């Protein structure tokens, strides 16, 4: 090291006293030092990249698994609706009343909003119809200031939007010849910041700046109301230059689960229900597709091998209020099969997912397991399978399928079209399906959304399909960029990316990866917790001697078999479970970190696990039963719902346990249950994490400030 010796300092900033004169190290040494540091740092960055990728995988797997569960639930609803006229003598059609409310004719009349008085004290925008630019500017300014639009104007806006949409066809045809360039945006999911950023970068909607928004304006994000109001306002202002496609989240049953219903009820306590009713109508009236210059097809989800644009143009789209309500079936057609396990939807997309080839072979295996007779097709709800006959479905089912395919499908790498019979709707479509449809209709490109992409966009099927996604930081701060497409007369798409940042200080990649990773791992651990007993069964099969240990391979096998998330379990192992000194996995350690929210003595661990796993589904059912959205349901309703639910889950939980539970939750003994409190008990607390879950959000904000 040259002539001068360097002495390692213990603390920083202190000058080191030296005997020898400081000498400049020679060039060879400097180079060696530089190489060493570069090597070290590059490796660190590469590890970060690995973590980022598997974090992404976790989010995606869980998100899709969640939606799968959601659809399982709705097949249960449909079945109940169609076939149960009495529920334990509690009068006719309890569920049908809840899910199929008689449309209030009041809402179709102008006076539904004009009788609402707007107080003097209201300082928000006062819209005047027909809308002008000053109205939309007022809305933009108000929403930036966190103001809420008065219910009267919301209702009027929706009423006018409904009138306008009724005149529109199912498929809108646009032309670039009269405009400069058309901007196409993907999912927004209630992210007002992203919408404002797009308007800032690209310009407000106008004759010079036409837009197509490709669905999923609401749910998940906190400002769904503001986003959708702005979009509808611009639609009314520039009906020829603003175009909205329906997404799978423009659906009142999805809204019940994913947050839009809740947001509306919180912001509009008095008129929330009417507003929601109008939203339901407006959503079902949204066009389902847009075509540019007869060459570019834009739909929210994708296509299937049955997609026929001519047929799609002809149907009455507003009749499909929700994709999650299957067309009517008669009682004779249905026949409850054996209880089988839920099989999750398998993801077969290119891009961010590893091991697609493994998934494909798994798909084959489970297809074989499911076959119960050639002329019937299996459709599950919850944990049982229902077997329905195959022959040609009635007209309204074909219409339903056309719309659902277009709103719910996803592209896959492999050829062919695999209808997801578990969902009863939506497909995975291969490059051959794309090719065929494009040829058939003289198209050259399919633009769709529906899936979050790291860079905000992604090409597949040899460039014939583009996915465009406009909600940046969708999973977590820093998880992904948002993007939009601009396309002009030459019909060549150009991509524009962006990312909303919550903080002014730039986050390092490390910080972003750590935050996202933490979030993903929490979600994953909750999944493990929710399937604890099945997992333990699986582990014990490999551990006949009750040592509490299995090999890493066995551990990974069990996790994949039970959870079916197709994740790199070996890579994730250090975050999920402890190793014994001999290198095997102590499988109990998977569950150490987790515990229930509020311990209820009546709740056995079995019941707790079931309630935890189906917590979101139970919440949806409660939300439906709670018609006035007061947060309370009667004990009687609670009991009925629970019995129905557990009958189909095949979970043996006796009535007395439920009754005890209901009574203990009725804290003020007035015969009604505050189900938010009930559900609190089945939220999972991460013991090693921040104590107060409400604090954790504040904390994560603080971290970056």
């Amino acid at each position, binding site marked *: 090291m040259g002539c001068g010796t360097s002495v390692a300092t213990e603390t920083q900033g202190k*000058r080191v006293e030296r005997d020898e004169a400081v000498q400049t190290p020679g060039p060879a040494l400097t180079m060696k030092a530089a190489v060493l540091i570069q090597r070290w740092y590059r490796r660190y960055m590469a590890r970060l990249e690995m973590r980022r990728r598997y974090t992404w995988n976790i989010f995606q797997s869980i998100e899709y698994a969640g939606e799968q569960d959601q659809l399982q639930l709705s097949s249960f609803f449909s079945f109940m609706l169609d076939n149960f006229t009495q529920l334990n003598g509690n009068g006719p059609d309890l569920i049908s009343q809840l899910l199929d409310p008689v449309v209030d004719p009041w809402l179709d009349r102008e006076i539904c909003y004009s009788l609402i008085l707007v107080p003097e004290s209201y300082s928000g925008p006062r819209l005047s119809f027909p809308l002008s630019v000053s109205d939309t500017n007022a809305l933009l300014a108000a929403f930036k200031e966190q103001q809420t639009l008065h219910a009267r104007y919301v209702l009027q806006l929706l009423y006018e939007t409904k009138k306008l949409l009724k005149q529109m066809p199912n498929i809108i045809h646009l032309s670039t010849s009269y405009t400069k360039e058309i901007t196409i945006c993907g999912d927004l999911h209630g992210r007002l910041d992203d919408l404002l950023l797009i308007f800032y970068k690209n310009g407000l909607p106008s004759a010079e700046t036409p837009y197509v928004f490709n669905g999923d304006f609401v749910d998940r994000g906190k400002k769904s109301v503001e986003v959708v109001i702005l979009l509808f306002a611009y639609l009314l202002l520039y009906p020829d230059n603003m175009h909205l496609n329906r997404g799978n989240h423009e659906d009142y049953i999805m809204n019940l689960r994913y947050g839009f219903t809740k947001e509306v009820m919180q912001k509009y306590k008095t008129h929330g229900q009417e507003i929601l009713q109008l939203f339901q109508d407006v959503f079902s009236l949204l066009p389902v597709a847009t075509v540019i210059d007869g060459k570019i097809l834009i739909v929210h989800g994708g296509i299937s091998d049955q997609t026929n644009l001519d047929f799609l143009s002809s149907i009455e789209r507003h009749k499909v209020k929700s994709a999650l309500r299957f067309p009517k079936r008669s009682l004779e057609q249905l026949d409850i099969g054996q209880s089988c396990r839920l099989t999750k939807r398998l993801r077969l997309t290119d891009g961010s997912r*590893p091991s697609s080839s493994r998934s494909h072979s798994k798909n084959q295996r489970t297809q074989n397991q499911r076959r119960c007779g050639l002329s019937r097709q299996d459709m599950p709800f919850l944990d049982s399978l229902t077997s329905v006959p195959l022959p040609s479905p009635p007209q309204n089912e074909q219409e339903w399928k056309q719309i659902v395919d277009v709103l719910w499908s996803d592209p896959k790498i492999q050829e062919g079209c695999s209808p997801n019979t578990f969902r009863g709707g939506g497909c995975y479509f291969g490059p051959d399906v794309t090719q065929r449809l494009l040829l058939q209709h003289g198209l050259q490109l399919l633009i769709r959304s529906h899936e979050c992409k790291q860079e905000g966009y992604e090409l597949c099927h040899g460039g014939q399909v583009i996915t465009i996604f406009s909600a940046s930081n969708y999973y977590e701060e820093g998880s992904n960029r948002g993007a939009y497409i601009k396309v002009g007369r030459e019909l060549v798409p150009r991509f524009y990316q962006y990312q909303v940042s919550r903080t002014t200080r730039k986050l390092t990649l490390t910080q972003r990866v750590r935050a996202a990773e933490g979030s993903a791992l929490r979600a994953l651990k909750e999944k493990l917790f929710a399937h604890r007993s099945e997992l333990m069964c699986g582990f014990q099969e490999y551990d006949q001697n009750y040592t509490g240990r299995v090999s890493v391979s066995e551990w990974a096998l069990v996790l994949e078999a039970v959870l079916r998330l197709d994740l790199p379990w070996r890579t994730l192992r250090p975050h999920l479970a402890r190793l014994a000194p001999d290198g095997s996995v102590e499988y109990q350690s998977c569950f150490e970190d987790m515990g229930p929210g509020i311990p209820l003595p009546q709740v056995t661990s079995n019941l707790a696990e079931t309630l935890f796993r189906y917590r979101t589904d139970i919440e949806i059912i409660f939300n439906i039963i709670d018609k006035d959205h007061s947060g309370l349901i009667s004990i009687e309703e609670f009991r009925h719902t629970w019995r129905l639910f557990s009958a189909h889950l095949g979970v043996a939980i006796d009535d007395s346990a439920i009754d005890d539970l209901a009574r203990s939750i009725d804290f003020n003994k007035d015969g009604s249950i505050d189900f938010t409190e009930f559900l609190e008990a089945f939220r999972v607390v991460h013991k090693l994490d921040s104590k107060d879950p409400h604090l954790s959000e504040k904390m994560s904000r603080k971290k970056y400030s």
Partner: protein
Amino acid sequence: MMSQTDETPAVAKRRDNNMAESNNQSAETKLSDVHKRIKAAFETFDNAANNTVDVREIGTIIYSLGCFPSQADLHDFIAEVEEDHSGYIHLDRFLPAMTKVLLEHKFPPIPKDLLLQAFEVLDKDNKGYLEPEELTKYMTQEGEPFTQEEMEEMLTGLADHERNVIYYKDVINQLAIDPDM
């Protein structure tokens, strides 16, 4: 004297821990485990599910398996396994080459004190920290230079927020690698 091949006790211990999973197993099981690790890392980057990865991802894959090759090391490795400059590397060739690397511990980790000495070489005035301009000069002009992107990320990541200098001793400790696979 600074040398890249010195193995400190810390390094030896880490290596032994890496082998912990295979200590009580037969040679075949150990080999099979190594293969599984390699395949798992490979598959994460195999986007088209056809057992090939883009050659530009090889560095990341090798790093993620616990190795610390230099760029020169990487070039040599790639030359061995790449399919005739196609830009792709097939698992069939990657697996044996990588297995050898892992079993022979070819690219061992850099011990912390060695890293510290490296920083001290660059810190000619012995301040205990490096100015961003100093570090940039070395990282982008010496050794196996960083790209501008790499440099920006490094500065954002490592610089102290108030003083805007790099306290390298802190940084070495902070950038602890997460639990090894």
